[in-house]
């Protein structure tokens, strides 16, 4: 990268959906306007206000269907008149919309067209029942594949991946890895007040996680606990140059540095050659790490896109933390738990914290910023100087758009 880029002033709304005490499917809930305003103001209040913002980027996947609302950049000046008359862009890359909002912001800072970018993401999905939400989310895949796909399209896609993995590497041992992933996610979410699973008080998480899948009503190889839930929420963070930091009066200690990033695209019309491999994720991580010039053992934490437990396993392998076929075992051994070798998804990830699709990529950056600036509250992990790096991986569709970002603690 030709100059230093930082992130600071992160903010997450609550990830609202089933599991939160305040969520009731029949009661009215906040809409897009509320979430966008709450998240943006959460960041603006930490950077000296809208006057310091040069441009904004907002990631969103499918407000056009979930909320019958397009043109989301138009909501940015609604938050604060100080954002009017400036550039605002909406990015869409399915569930990587938030990650792409971040890379768009980073690129603008690198290009010198902005010193301070308000980068955010939002999704309000509880407007329809899950069975219809599945139709909307299926838009992250190729529409020509929809007819042959499962009623729950994406759970179906990842169930197929899980099935292939089980067949090749053994069902029972693999399931142990998935179950441990679920337990870690919930235990971490219980430490984060904005997490959708913050109120989760289930006693035997392992038993829940091992609920046998029922293909008659859901998918063949995954149960509902293997899946992230339907969430509403927004997340926001400032992406800044050194000048931006100064203008906003932010100390470097209160920011993380962006060391490298990679954005990789796979052909949406093609079927993965090997269902047990996430090739685009593998490539994005390799690129980001090589640009950063760091090794895996220098990572203090990772935020990765566990829309399904099996995605967690496949990504662990794509990153290179475990050999092909050994990811589940590596997880089952506790390596990714908060007290393990490399804590992953320390506030619960998509399964525990929630998955407001267009906001997820930004949420990952906010979590790493919180951890590296000692703001993670009860979810705080210790980060030592020998391992000052963090990695986030945000995925759109089935390994179609992948954004990997490497961060450094200041």
């Amino acid at each position, binding site marked *: 990268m030709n100059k230093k880029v930082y992130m600071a002033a992160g903010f997450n709304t609550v990830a609202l959906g089933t599991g939160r005490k305040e969520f009731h499917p029949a009661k009215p809930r906040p809409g897009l306007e509320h979430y966008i305003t709450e998240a943006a103001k959460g960041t603006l209040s930490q950077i000296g206000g809208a006057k310091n913002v040069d441009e904004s980027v907002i990631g969103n996947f499918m407000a056009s269907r979930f909320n019958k609302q397009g043109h989301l950049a138009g909501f940015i000046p609604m938050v604060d008149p100080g954002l009017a008359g400036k550039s605002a862009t909406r990015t869409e890359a399915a569930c990587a919309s938030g990650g792409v909002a971040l890379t768009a912001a980073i690129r603008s800072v690198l290009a010198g067209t902005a010193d301070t970018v308000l980068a955010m993401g939002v999704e309000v999905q509880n407007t329809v029942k899950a069975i219809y939400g599945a*139709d909307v989310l299926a838009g992250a895949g190729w529409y020509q594949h929809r007819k042959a796909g499962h009623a729950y399209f994406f759970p179906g896609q990842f169930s197929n991946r899980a099935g292939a993995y089980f067949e090749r590497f053994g069902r029972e041992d693999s399931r142990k890895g998935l179950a441990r992933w679920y337990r870690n996610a919930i235990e971490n979410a219980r430490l984060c007040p904005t997490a959708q699973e913050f109120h989760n008080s289930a006693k035997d998480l392992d038993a829940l996680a091992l609920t046998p899948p029922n293909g008659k009503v859901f998918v063949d190889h995954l149960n509902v606990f293997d899946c992230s839930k339907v969430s509403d929420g927004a997340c926001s963070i400032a992406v800044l140059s050194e000048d931006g930091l100064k203008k906003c009066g932010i100390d470097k200690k209160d920011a993380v540095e962006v060391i490298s990033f990679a954005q990789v695209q796979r052909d949406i019309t093609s079927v993965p050659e090997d269902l047990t491999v996430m090739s685009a994720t593998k490539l994005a991580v390799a690129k980001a790490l090589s640009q950063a010039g760091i090794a895996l053992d220098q990572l203090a934490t990772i935020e990765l896109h566990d829309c399904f437990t099996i995605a967690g396993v496949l990504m662990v392998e794509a990153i290179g933390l475990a050999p092909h076929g050994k990811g589940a075992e590596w997880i089952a051994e506790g390596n990714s738990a908060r007290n393990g070798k490399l804590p992953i998804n320390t506030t619960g990830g998509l399964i525990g914290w929630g998955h407001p699709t267009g906001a997820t990529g930004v949420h990952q950056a906010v979590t790493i910023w919180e951890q590296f600036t000692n703001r993670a509250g009860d979810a705080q992990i210790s980060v030592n100087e020998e391992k000052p790096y963090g990695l986030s991986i945000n995925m759109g569709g089935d390994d179609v758009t992948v954004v990997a970002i490497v961060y450094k603690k200041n």
Partner: protein
Amino acid sequence: MSYSEKLSHVAVLGAAGKMGSGILLLTALEMFEQSTLPENQGKSFLLDAIDLSPEALKGLRKYLAVQAKKNGEKKTVWLRSVYANRADLIENEQIIDQYVQDVVDQVSFTTRIESAYDAHLVFEAASENPDLKVKLFKQIDVNSSVKPWFLTNTSSIPISYLDQNASLGGRIIGFHFYNPPAVQKLAELISAPATLPELTEFSLQFASRLRKTVVKSNDVAGFIGNGHFMRDLLFASSTVARLSSEFSVAQALYIVDKVSRDYLVRPMGIFQLTDYVGVDVCSYILSVMDRFIPGRGLKSDLVDSLLSMNIKGGQFSDGSQKDGIFKYQKGAPVAVINLENGEYLPLTEVAPACDSWLGALPQGWLGWKQVMRLADREAHLASHFATLRTMPDNGAKLALEYAQWAAKVAHGLVSDGVANSTIDVNTVMMTGFFHSHGPVNNF
């Protein structure tokens, strides 16, 4: 004729009523499922929804569409395979909408009973009036060329009586759903001695396809469910009369209702249940039972006086509770009737004196909802009843008296040849009435 051939043309009488609409829905869903089987491709399936009220039929169409949609939303995985060859149906929403349309399209909504003349099966859910039912069956049977099977939803009238008086030659069976049929798991099946074995066999298959728990009852008026419920109600009524020397009727109603709900750990008290079913319906059932089982005191002065004051209870078409013995707010009783002037007395006024007479609930008491969630419900109930036996309070004594009566009624149903076993009585009370325990137990 095969199971699905029998289902290829069905008529439901009283289809827009409380029970009829549920029966129509379940039949329509099952009929659609049969129509999707490979061997039934291209065959026609027809369901006549017959009711006197055109207005109610309009409501029925809506109810059917809404419920079919809910069903489709739960069974979308299956529906995608049903419509796999329809290239134009891609998203779940399109598929579910088509399903709803196909389910509703099977049904012809009509006020004309003549539609039933060609039906292979006639499901009857008309009002609980023996003469009316006989008249309907006769009219259809003499005009039909296919010798239809009749399934009656009667909850009290002996099937043999209907069979003989309508001259059906055993082509009738009692298929008693509980309210609401789409939700309640229990079906009481009543074969008269003359009922055709193949009709019984069909009914068992139909019930099993509908995932109902079947309890076979013998052909005695009231069968098991109302046989128990009505005698329960009679005990409650006589207890009210007994308490009336010490309390006002309103207070006595409150006391007995509370004891039957809280102390006996049931979802609602006996008089709330009476309101739920309808005081008028209870009166109808009692009169049928008294007619067919005379001399057993199956009469209630309390029910008679309530009805004479036009206090009926029952439900509105949206399922919410009408005022009856109690006045309701959001489904919960808030006031009780004063039989002297027909006005309601707030429970806040009635309760204190009654509660202090009853005494405190036993230590460790849990309400019905909590008890139903317990992993070891049996152990909790055993300790609950053991504690009651140690208590000197009036509430505990009355509760034990009530529980003994309930057990006695259950044994009586077996010795009278209504139920085949006390296990069947327990199943009916627990599945059809949602009691936390059967009347015959070791507590």
